[in-house]
């Protein structure tokens, strides 16, 4: 559901061959009734030095609702903003768990008593899509791992990701161990056993410098650190490294015109005098030697320039050199 008129949804459904219903809540009445109308839009736009345009009125917070067979709401996700939002794969794994069988691209490693598997919601990501790295440790019966806080000399389970600078990693939920004591030792330990699932949220920060470099490979390296023990003995602390394949999806918004071409044009034109969106679009298109630039592409470029502090909005709704 969106607040688009039917005609917009018809075009969108045709161009993307969508057959499931796209609902038109053209006056945002249902969006309002559901309590997800974006009421912080002015502040949000202002934070990006942007003004609210007419097309933004009635915008919802991005929301996903899961209904059971009886229509009962059994799950929901509501996002702060459309800038960073989950993908279909992320929603599927959040709400319905992993599909049966091995997730595509899963990698594994093991050490005595411990098997580790790691996989991603999806192996192809676009900028600002919220994704998850899943790590599952399966322990043999009688084996446990330590979690924080650990007494000196023991190693708690830890995960570290290394990869491209554009990958931003979110907070990992702390692992909840249960209390455990060892005969002859005063300290209390917190341990994990059986199956341990760790979920690491991450997203690719939009990086228009590489926007033309489609299918960019972004290998991700995951180090999992732990110490496995049984009731009788402890193994040496381990650090296992798993390498995952990740790549950046081609961004259709930049297929025909990359930022390297658009940004200098925008800067040059507004340096002459502040311009409206429409004026800029006309001037940029006139200079693009027949390559059509649409309002979205131009808007994305201006967004980047604003974020980088090169362009500012004027009081009369134009763009000016910062």
């Amino acid at each position, binding site marked *: 559901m969106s607040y688009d008129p039917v005609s917009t949804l018809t075009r969108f459904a045709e161009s993307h061959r969508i057959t499931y219903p796209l609902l038109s809540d053209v006056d945002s009445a249902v969006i309002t009734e559901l309590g997800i109308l974006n009421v912080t839009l002015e502040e949000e736009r202002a934070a*990006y030095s942007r003004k609210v345009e007419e097309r933004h009125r009635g915008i919802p917070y*991005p929301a996903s*609702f*899961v209904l059971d067979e009886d229509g009962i709401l059994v799950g929901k996700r*509501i996002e*702060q903003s459309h800038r960073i939002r989950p993908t279909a794969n992320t929603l599927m794994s959040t709400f319905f768990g992993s599909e049966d069988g091995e997730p595509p691209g899963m990698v594994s490693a093991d050490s005595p008593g411990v098997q580790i598997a790691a996989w991603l919601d999806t192996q192809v990501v676009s900028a600002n899509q919220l994704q998850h790295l899943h790590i599952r440790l399966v322990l043999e019966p009688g084996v446990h791992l330590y979690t924080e806080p650990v007494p000196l000399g023991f190693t708690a389970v830890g995960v570290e990701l290394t990869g491209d600078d554009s990958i931003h990693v979110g907070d990992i939920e702390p692992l909840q161990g249960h209390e455990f004591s060892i005969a002859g030792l005063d300290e209390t330990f917190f341990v994990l056993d059986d199956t341990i699932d760790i979920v690491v949220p991450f997203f690719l920060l939009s990086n228009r410098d590489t926007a033309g470099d489609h299918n960019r490979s972004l290998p991700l390296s995951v180090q999992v650190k732990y110490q496995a023990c049984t009731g009788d003995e402890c193994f040496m602390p381990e650090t296992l490294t798993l390498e995952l394949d990740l790549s950046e999806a081609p961004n259709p918004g930049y297929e025909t015109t990359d930022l390297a071409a658009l940004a200098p044009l925008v800067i040059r034109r507004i340096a002459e005098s502040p311009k409206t969106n429409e004026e800029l679009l006309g001037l940029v298109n006139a200079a693009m030697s027949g390559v059509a630039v649409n309002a979205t592409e131009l808007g994305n470029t201006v967004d980047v320039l604003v974020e980088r502090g090169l362009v500012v909005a004027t009081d009369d709704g134009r763009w000016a050199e910062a």
Partner: protein
Amino acid sequence: MGDFINLPIPEIDADGLGPPLGQRFPDVVLPDQSGNLVDLHQHRAGRRGLFIVHRSADW
């Protein structure tokens, strides 16, 4: 690599928004891309459903 960037946008209580969990989702009856009225619950026909609310398809 680093922490999540702190977006300079107002914080919302996202979990507090929208209909409450555990209750029947409100009726939604709206035209689809062909202009036909679709009743969300009727369309589910007793199946589970994923209902996504998105910004304009035209951006």
